[in-house]
């Protein structure tokens, strides 16, 4: 099961958004990978190094691929994080 999502948080997949993303990916049983929508490469969503290492910026499209019983719920939760802007002071 896969899905393409546009990254909204201003900082892209860095710091807080990345941390929340990885934390959430680890809460589910499904095995999730992510990569840029325009490339075939995929990295494990449960790894902070892999996720921040992609250097995805705001406005970029990413591809999420999930396998497992709760794949759909996992993708919903991850999509919510990627499409929610960060809180401002």
């Amino acid at each position, binding site marked *: 099961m896969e899905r393409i999502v546009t990254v909204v948080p201003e*900082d*892209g997949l*860095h*710091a*807080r958004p*990345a*941390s*929340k993303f*990885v*934390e959430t990916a680890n809460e589910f049983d499904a095995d999730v990978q992510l990569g840029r929508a325009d490339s075939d490469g995929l990295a*494990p969503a*449960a*790894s*902070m*190094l*892999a996720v*921040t*290492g992609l*250097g995805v910026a705001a406005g970029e499209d990413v591809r999420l691929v999930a396998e497992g019983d709760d794949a759909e719920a996992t993708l919903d939760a991850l999509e919510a994080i990627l*499409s*929610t*802007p*960060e*809180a*401002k*002071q």
Partner: protein
Amino acid sequence: MAERTLSGIGVTPLSGVGTVIWYRPDADLPEPPEPEDIDAEAELARFEDAREAAEDELETERARTADRVGKEEAAVFDAHIQFLNDPQITDGVADAIEGGLPAEHAVQETFSSFVEQFENMGGRMGERADDLRDIRDRLVRVLSDAERTDLSSLPTGSVVVAERLTPSDTAQLDPERVAGFVTVTGGRTSHAAIFARSLALPAIVGVGEELNAVEDDTEVVVDGETGDLVVQPDDEQKEAAAADTDVEIRHDPVETADGVDIEVAANIGTRADLGPAVDRGADGVGLFRTEFLFLDRESPPDEDEQFDAYVEAAESFDAGRVVVRTLDIGGDKPVPYLDLPDEENPFLGERGIRRSLGPDADLFETQIRALLRAAGSADGARLSVMLPLVSTVEELRRAREQFESVADDLTEEGIVHEMPEFGIMVETPATAFMADQFAPHVDFFSIGTNDLAQYVMAAERGNERVSDLGDYRQPAVLRAIDATVSAADDTDCWVGMCGEMAGDPDLTELLVGLGLDELSMSAVTVPQVKAAVTETDTEDAEALAARVLRAETKAEVIETLTENQ
């Protein structure tokens, strides 16, 4: 070394005098033993213990930071915990141990390759490299049982000097003992800078390599305003800095030199901000951002929880007022239990009062109930309420009707309550233009300069590329402020200002001259602004304001202000 001055980026309007203590957290490891002498299983177990100990430390530091600085800043420790537990790291360390390295060397080697990888990617990745270094050093320290330089118990009067300070380092600094800190790297928005402001510490970042020449035990003056680090200062320089640091904390309200009362209040977001606001002598709270009660949770706070928070804020002050801003939430702030729309321009979308009168009507009603009850029950400061992002008189009328209808309900239910003072934020050009129409309907205006500058100049806050435009010293912004104050002149409506501009002591005279009655700011600059008020003569201030309002450009505004100093 003779007296000289190094310059960096000043990040707080505070000065300190003290003695340099270099903080060099990187531990040098001894040569590793021969691979055949390594008991891989034992080393793996040591690593696992160290990883757990490091995670415990990070949890503790996260809690301390959330308490002292804020939830948002504390979140950096979540990222550290995830790096620490990353399978690529744990596998990497295990492989290195299997390859014949003791645990601490395995950690060094594994992290260093990732640090290098992130550094080579450039840009934002440098920050991730810093995160990884921080975690690596923590693990190595735990593994080698190294004594941790305890930044929380340094001798009084220390100026901490370091290549960089990580969030965990900075969170340990005790403002009662430390006279300031200075770093080789870092920028105005780095974690260290943000912490410095929250902890009210004099601080300079980004001094550069030159800083390495300043040795331990050297006396320095840290000027967090100009960014100047004076090495081996003379007595005059020390006295000037000490006078600045020792800005008297005045717990009583202040007036200008010719006797005009100016209220100086603090902005607060969380309960943790109340202590510093009281300690620094704020007369009350000029802006209580209630959205922090609503963010980062799964369901909205109920009426009693809000009631308690408002009462606690009012009771923290013996007198004065606490201005509570009703929920200001919109497309730019995520709230899990609200169905916030996706908007192209959240700053121009459904936010603030627009949501309270629309989709969030139920939340608004609960908040009004809590506010009216708190206004009738709190001892100490008076509670006032303020509506965010008002742009039409109809919005104000509708909100006011809601307050009255809720008050009627409470009367019927026999619940103690009181109608608080009622005001609006002036942050849209629409409200500034129409201020004379708004004034008869409210008790006060509070000018929100960050948003007002953004909307007047059509320049987004926080967008570096247009930061010159979004500056509150732009003549157009000053005219919007002047129009607002003038419209309220012959009415009972008082005018305050909350936002960064109010907390700049260099602008206090101008703001008094423009006719502001109240200034509200982050607690750190309250003493400086109070001091500036007492030195101001209103007639001179009005003359200055008139000159500044004639300026054609921001450069002219700045020039006029500088000449006046």
